[in-house]
Every structure is written in structure tokens, then in C-alpha cells.
């Protein structure tokens, strides 16, 4: 504890400098986004840039405050923080203020706070603390409760509803991956998401056929052509039977027939696999059957359970339906402003497109439009470069920890910043669907800035005290 006097010598100044640089660049771009010659004073507190400057000041105070606290404080109070923020997330559903259709804000005087921005910090701490307590770090007995710790706040936020923030909670799975969650969980999740999207875009049948073809290729690679040939023959026979009965006698959907054929084939095949103890083909088969069943479920749920207006929203998000004044409109305006920036940009405060205020949320979620239009490709790459630098730096810091607690927490901070960075910039240029989440340290807004500052500096504080730990 007495070591906190020389904290200055032990915190990671590279990260601090990157943090400062991003806040200043963000603020310059907010100034440009709401720029108006008649309010030229950059300290005008009635304007967003004036307020942001105030919030940057407060963020610096917060950072200093975090640095002078004892690092064990965060370790011992992790669960208290977690409980407290779960409570706040519950309260905001009851007494919160609704902005843009989500009950996500506490209003204190003229001032609004979004508890979900701070709950990420508490979730990161609690998850790290939990993983730190485990003797072995992988297996279902660890990963199931760990997933519950992540999902509890996410579910409360989904009720607001603020789906953008919910998606960012998936960042914590980077922590679980690093701490040993089975790679197959990730493969399954990625496959599930891909199948879902593909089946909505392409329809059921091509995806079902694609799955069978991919399974055949996987079998060929893992087990050689003789076994693949045998499996294909079995499939062809069962497929023929299933097609005859399903199509001519029962009038079933073709994707259902394929699934039936695979089940039938599996019954024959199972005995064969069991006898020869073939692990590879078994895994391929399980994935194929699981994929097909999942596909049919998605199709059923989407068309029979989800309400029509929710279907529309999902469709718009996937770009299947176009709504001129909905998400598609925002993206078009955003693309025009960034695209018109060219190589070098139009110059600071000279953006024309963004000045028409046709890009919505220009100073918050779409702040990157200003960067793209006024600073061009070069400026955009610089901003992306800063984020890459910060992210790699955080990785390096996390890896040099001696306790699971600090490493897991560090990975949480890293994951959150990565997800925000990629989704936010990605949505402005049409790489990912439009999801309303801020760009860390850049976007206008106190809650987001303080939330990320808190996340980052608690990690820096823990990192500075890494030699204090007994292990």
C-alpha cells in the first residue's frame, strides 16, 4: 500500500498517452460535427463540444482518483460492484427515463447517466474474480457460471431494450476463450450465427445442401476417400428412401427430407462408427445433424414465433428489406460523407455533407463520419491505427500479469474496446449492420467516456500493482 506513492513511475504511460490523444481527437471532431460560426467559442457550455470538454476534465479527475485508490479495493469489492450495478440496471427499468425508445437513463437534474455503460466495468471485475477462484480453468463447471455472470446484466439491458449494448457484452467471451473455453463452443456459436443469417438471406434449401457438401468435404479431409465413398453410398440410399416417402407420400419440404435422410443414414452409420471407433467422422456427423436441426428450428421460429414487426426489424438489419428513413437511410448518408472525404479529406471544419445534419447522431454514434469526411482516408487510418496500438498494448499488459484476476480483467477491457471499435466504425461504412453503440473515447457523451475511462484506469491501476500480489 505504501507503494502507491510511486504509482507514477509504474503506470503504463503509453496507454495514458493514447487515451489522452483519443479524447482530444474525439473532441476536435465533435466540435467539427456541430460546428457553427456563430458559436465559435470552443468553451461554450451550451454546445456539445463545450460539454464534452467538461466531461473530459471530469474523466481525467476520475482517472486520477482510480490511480490513487488501493488496487486490492477492486479485487475485494468486485462482487459488491457487480451486485450494485445489477441493482441499478433493475432500477432503471422501473424509474429510468426513456430516450430514443430505450429506458436506459437515470435523470439527475439536467443530467442523464446510463448505468449500462458502467455495468460493463462491474461485469469485467466479477468475471475476473470468478475465474481467479477456479482451480482448473476450463470445463463446463467453470464456463456455465461464467457465462451466467456475463448474461445477467445483458438480459437486464435487453429489457430496456438496448440491443446495441447487449451485443457488446459478447466481448467478454474473449476472456473465456483466453481462459480456456473449448474452441468447439466458439465454432458452434459462429456456425449458428452464420447458419441463421444464411438461411434468412438464401433460404433453407441451399443452406441444407451446402451443409451436406461441407460435411462430405470434411469427411474427405479427415478420413480419406474410401470412407467418404461409403458414407456417400449410405446417404444416397437413405436419401432415395427419404425422398420417395417424403416427397411422394407425405409432401414434405425438401430441407426436411434431407434432414430425415441424414437421420436415417446416421442409424446405419452409427453402428459402423461405433464398431471402428472413428472419432473424426462422428464429430462431422454430429455437426451436420445439429446444423440441419438448428436450421429447421430457426426457420420455424422466425416464421411462427417472432412477431411480424420484429421480423421487419431483423430483416432491415440484414439489409433484406430497405427502409428509406430507417437504418438504410442512415447508412447511405454516412457512406456519402465518408466516401466524399477522398484521400486527404476536405480539411478540418470544411466538411459540407455532414454540416447538413443529414447524418443522424453525428456527434455520438456516427462521429466517425466527421473523421472520414474532413480527414479523409489518411485520417481514418490514423484513427484505426491508434485503436490497434491501444488494443495491442492492452494485450501486452494483460499477458504480463501474474494473476488470473488481472489478466482476465485486462482481457475484458480489451474485448470491450475491440468490439466497440469494430462495430462502430464498421457500421458507418457498411461492414456491419447499424447498431447504436459509441466509439470509445471519441463519441459525444459523458456516460460512455467515463465508463471506458473507469474500465481502462482500473486495469492500469491493477497493472501498476502487479508486483504487490502474492499470487
Amino acid at each position: 500500500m505504501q507503494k502507491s506513492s510511486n504509482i507514477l513511475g509504474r503506470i503504463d504511460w503509453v496507454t495514458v498517452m493514447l487515451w489522452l490523444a483519443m479524447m482530444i481527437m474525439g473532441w476536435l471532431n465533435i466540435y467539427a460535427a456541430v460546428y457553427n460560426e456563430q458559436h465559435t467559442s470552443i468553451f461554450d457550455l451550451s454546445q456539445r463540444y463545450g460539454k464534452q470538454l467538461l466531461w473530459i476534465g471530469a474523466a481525467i479527475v476520475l482517472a486520477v482518483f482510480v490511480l490513487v485508490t488501493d488496487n486490492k479495493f477492486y479485487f475485494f469489492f468486485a462482487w459488491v460492484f457487480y451486485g450494485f450495478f445489477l441493482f441499478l440496471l433493475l432500477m432503471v427499468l422501473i424509474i429510468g427515463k426513456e430516450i430514443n425508445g430505450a429506458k436506459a437513463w437515470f435523470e439527475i437534474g439536467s443530467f442523464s447517466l446510463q448505468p449500462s455503460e458502467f455495468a460493463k466495468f462491474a461485469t469485467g471485475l466479477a468475471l475476473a474474480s470468478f475465474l481467479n477462484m477456479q482451480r482448473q480453468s476450463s470445463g463446463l463447471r467453470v464456463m456455465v457460471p461464467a457465462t451466467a455472470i456475463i448474461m445477467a446484466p445483458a438480459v437486464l439491458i435487453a429489457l430496456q431494450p438496448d440491443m446495441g449494448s447487449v451485443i457488446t457484452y459478447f466481448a467478454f467471451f474473449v476472456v473465456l476463450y483466453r481462459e480456456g473455453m473449448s474452441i468447439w463452443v466458439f465454432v458452434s456459436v459462429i456456425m449458428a450465427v452464420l447458419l441463421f443469417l444464411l438461411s434468412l438471406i438464401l433460404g433453407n434449401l441451399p443452406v441444407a445442401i451446402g451443409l451436406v457438401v461441407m460435411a462430405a468435404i470434411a469427411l474427405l479431409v479427415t478420413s480419406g476417400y474410401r470412407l467418404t465413398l461409403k458414407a456417400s453410398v449410405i446417404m444416397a440410399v437413405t436419401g432415395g428412401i427419404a425422398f420417395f416417402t417424403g416427397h411422394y407420400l407425405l409432401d414434405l419440404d425438401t430441407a426436411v427430407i434431407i434432414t430425415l435422410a441424414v437421420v436415417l443414414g446416421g442409424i446405419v452409420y452409427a453402428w459402423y462408427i461405433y464398431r471402428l471407433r472413428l472419432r473424426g467422422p462422428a464429430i462431422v456427423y454430429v455437426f451436420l445433424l445439429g446444423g440441419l436441426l438448428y436450421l429447421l428450428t430457426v426457420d420455424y421460429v422466425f416464421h411462427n414465433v417472432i412477431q411480424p414487426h420484429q421480423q421487419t426489424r431483423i430483416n432491415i438489419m440484414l439489409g433484406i428489406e430497405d427502409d428509406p428513413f430507417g437504418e438504410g437511410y442512415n447508412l447511405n448518408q454516412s457512406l456519402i460523407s465518408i466516401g466524399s472525404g477522398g484521400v486527404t479529406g476536405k480539411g478540418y471544419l470544411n466538411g459540407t455533407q455532414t454540416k447538413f445534419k443529414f447524418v443522424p447522431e453525428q456527434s455520438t454514434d456516427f462521429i466517425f463520419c466527421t473523421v472520414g469526411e474532413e480527414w479523409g482516408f489518411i485520417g481514418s487510418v490514423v484513427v484505426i491505427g491508434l485503436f490497434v496500438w491501444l488494443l495491442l498494448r492492452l494485450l501486452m499488459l494483460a499477458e504480463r500479469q501474474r494473476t488470473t484476476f488481472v489478466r482476465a480483467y485486462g482481457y475484458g477491457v480489451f474485448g470491450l474496446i475491440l468490439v466497440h471499435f469494430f462495430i462502430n466504425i464498421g457500421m458507418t461504412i457498411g461492414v456491419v449492420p447499424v447498431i447504436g453503440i459509441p466509439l470509445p473515447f471519441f463519441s459525444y457523451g459523458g456516460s460512455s467516456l467515463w465508463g471506458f475511462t473507469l474500465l481502462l484506469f482500473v486495469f492500469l491501476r491493477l497493472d501498476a500493482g502487479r508486483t504487490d500480489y502474492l499470487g
Partner: protein
Amino acid sequence: MKDRYANRKYLIMALVLVAALILIARLFYIQIIDKTYRVSAANNALRPVMQYPARGLIYDRNGELIVYNQAAYDLLVIPIQTSAFDTSRFNEILGISMDDFRERMKGAVSYSRRTPSVFMKMISSETYALLQEEMYRFPGFYVQARTLRKYTRPVAAHLLGYVGEVDNKLLARDRYYRSGDYIGVSGIEKSYEEELRGTKGVNIFLVDVHNNIKGSYADGRYDTIAIPGTNLWSTIDISLQEYGEKLMQNKTGSIVVIEPATGEILTLVTSPSYDPNLLVGRIRSENFSLLQADTVKPLFDRALMASYPPGSTFKIMNGLIGLQENVIHPSSLFSCSNGYHAGSLTVGCHTHNSPLDLQEAVAQSCNAWFCNAFRNILENQRYGSVQDAFDQWREYLVAFGFGNKLGIDLPNELPGFIPTRSYYDRYYGKDRWKALTIISLAIGQGEIGATPLQMANMAAIIANRGSFYIPHVVKRVGDNGSPSPLYMQKYITGISPENFEPVIEGMEGAVNGGSGSTARGARLDSIIICGKTGTAQNPHGKDHSIFVAFAPRENPQIAIAVYVENAGFGSTFAAPIASLMIEEYLTGQVRRKYLEDYVLKTVITPDAKEQ
């Protein structure tokens, strides 16, 4: 603990680099490779022009157009794109002075140099035509088409509602709207805003320094087309509405007319009212303040919001409930000696024959008869206590639509008030009240309030012998549309059809009976009107006159409630007005000119009550 998974950091590191590379590759494509986003020369500017769709039209039930649009134009300016030009010619076209010009220009500049702001709102088509020819001489200026609402007849202002600019609160909540957009603020314009407004479009133009539009940006790839709003067919009979407003001129109150078979509202008059054309365009805000400051409250929609004690018209309800509960019978006789007497309590009545049966009691509006009936309802042995019987009584009223909003497709409807058991428990102590404590409810006085809409709905329910559709003012959304399914569902009230007949007999007697009948002023030779008068006690002045009715007796076509404030007994004004409305609607013309003149000539202003 040994870190078995340390190698996983490499994959995570790769994830960061892949993410960054995807973003950079995409940026490289849209900012450098793809030329469609590029604005070619530095002196070219992009100009997004909103395409405002025409708002949906509104027709009356017979297909007569009642609300339409007129073109208007906003002159916009982007200060940074202006340069020296012939201001005197400019001002001449617009008909403004140099000072005015400077003032407006200053306003635009102080809003923003780079974004468009309105230089002059709603210029006329003639001015627009002149301006358009010489537009090339005025760089930085351009015109944006808007539409204004117009009304074919100066009536139904509250019902139709008006359109105004969106406020900041809504701008924060709903992303469809932008500052300066119009939105329905009241009436049908508000409740059917989403159908009427259509969808805005945007054209993005490239403009050179000479204010010439050089074409669509990126070949119109980012333009969207405006979709016009949906037309509405109202249930209103606009001629009847106009006639009703004429009858109510110089009086305060309301007329609600419903077609019983469908719940369609034929007329919704509130008086005093105003000409809907007053709240359109540039004159709107000024007129709005004037109307708001007016002491007779012309902006207050009495038909949906004023809650009055229903007075004697409410005896119908107690009669129906008593019959349904089997505590009275059509032939039940109660005597009346100038009122109802129980201990120290007296409810007065006028002089008439005694005793009376149900039909005569309705026709002559005997207070004593209904005090007895009400007592029978609350002291019914079937229920454990007066309080339980009261709950049952209230349930019937709720089924008739009292005490709650009916759910009309107009904003601002109020629920009226029917006291609850706990209301009286709070007032008198738990279960420490009896039938006699609340006996004024027997004759529709006391802690009870109903809106004219609820009373008209009650008349419709009686006309239908026990069922109703929720009253509504729009019968078709879109040229071949239907009403909302909400208004196609039939509601049953829990009173059997046969119990209506004796009460209806009494209502017929009230209008068409011999001496002692209370509403003979409403009698019409050719058509059997069934009605009931009422008088709402008014603690602030002269009582309000009420009349509810339907006609004809068999296969009713019209149900009506009329309120005239400070007019005294229901028979004096409300009944003749209702009778004239029925005659006008059912026969197409009013033959009783003497009665019409009597109503038209009468002036009852709220101020008159002080004398």
C-alpha cells in the same frame, strides 16, 4: 497455476489485425477506389432537398371532401452559398423591405452559415412562379414545396384537429421527424398521423456556384421517393355537423350523434368552436394564442372532455339495472308525495299523479320512484352487503362504458367518473355507508360524471337493446380500407334485450305522451322519438340542460346526446335541438322553422349566468 492456454493470445492478436484490415480495406474502397461518392469540383455543393409528401385527404361519410391540401412554398437559404446579388429585385418579388431582408438574413446566419434555414415561410404560388424564373440570379436561395391543410367548410375544428410543427421533445423521441416538419397535433390529424403523413423523400442535388442545379448526386442513387399519405373516410355527416354547429351557435355545450348499428359518429359538436382555417399556415401561432386566451375556451373539446353529472337521464340506467337484477318490475308501483322521504332525508319531486309504474316514472321523471328502485338495487338480499350490491351496480355501468375512456379514435378523451366502493369507504369509513347515504346517484346527481360521448353511447346501447360498437370517427383508412378491427367488435352490456322494452316505452312516453311528460318539445309527428331529459346541477351558475334520445323506436337510425350549459331544464333547449337534429338527419330537411328560429335566436353565453 500453469497457464495452459497462453498460446491463444496469438489468435486474439490476429483478430485485432484482421478487424483493422477489414475496416481499412473497406475505407480504401469507398474513399479512393469508388468514385460515386466524390463531389467533383471544390466549388460544387451538395443540396439535399426534402420531398414532402401530400398529406392524406379526409372525406365525410357520403364521400364529400372535407380536408384537402394546398401547395405552399418555403424559401430557404444557405448563407455560405450566397454572394452579391440584386437585393432590390429580390425584395420586390417577395414584397419585403430592405430592413426586413436584413433581419431575415441575420436570423438565417445566426442559425447557421452552412445549413439551410427558412428565409421565408409559405410564399404563395404566384410569388413562387416569379421567383423561379429568376432563381439563377439569387445564389444560395432555393424553394422547397410544402402543403397546407384547407377545409371545405368552416366546421368540425376539434374533430379534424390541426397540424403544427414538431416540438423538440418529439424530435428527440422519433427519428422520422426533423426540425420544421409538420405533424398532427390534435383530432383526427393526430390519431391518424401515421396514416396521413405518408413518407418523406430526399433528393440530393449537385449545385454550382451560380445556383444552378447540375443534376442528381451519384445519379440519384441516394434519393428516396416521397410516398403520399393515405386518405381517410370519416364517419361524420358533414352537413349534419354543420347544422349542429349552427344550432349551437351562441350557446355552450355539445352534441354527439351516433349511428347505433355501427358505432359510427355522425356528428361531434362542441361549442364554442372556431374555424379550422384559422390554425393553418403563417397565421396559426397568432390565432392559437388568441383562442387560448379566449375566456369561453373555444379550444376545449366538451364532447370528449367535459364531465357533467348526467342528471335525470341516468334514471334510465337505474331502471335497467333494477329490472336485470329482478328487484323491480315494469308494473312496480311507488308513490310520490312531492318527493321521496326517508327519516330526515328528502329528495324533492314535482307534482304529478301517484303512484306511478316504471313507464310513467320514466316519462314523468319521478325522483321518488327511482330512489325506491335504487334502494332496492343496493339492498338486494342476494348480495351480502350494500357494498357488494354497489360493486355489482357499478359493473353494469362500466359495461355501458361509464367511468372509463370508451376508446374513441381521437386524442384527449376523458373517462368521466363513477365512484368506487373504496371511494366511499375513504369518504365515510369502511362499509359505513348505506343506500340512503348515496341516494343522489338514483337520480344521476352527486359524485358522478359522464361525457357527452358516453351519454350518446348510452342512447345507442338502448337503441340496440343492449349492445354497442365503440364510437369512432373514421370508417375507412385508405380508399378501399376498413376501420380498425377495434371498432368492428360488438360489446354486450349484460342487460337482457327484453328489459329494455319497458324503459323504451317510458322514453317514448316522455316525448310523445300526455300531460306530465317531460320532453314534449322534442316530439316529431312523422317519427317516433324516444328520449329522456336531464338537468345537470351546476354549482357555478344556472343548471345545464341535457337530452338523450334515439329514433325511430323500431330499427333506430340515430342516437343522440345534447348538452346545453346554463340553459336550465333539459326540456327547454337540449330536447328541441336533439329533435331538430333527428329531423334533419332522418328526413333531410327541417320543416319546423318556428322551432329552428327559437333555437337559433337564443343566446346563452357563460357570462349571462351571472345576471
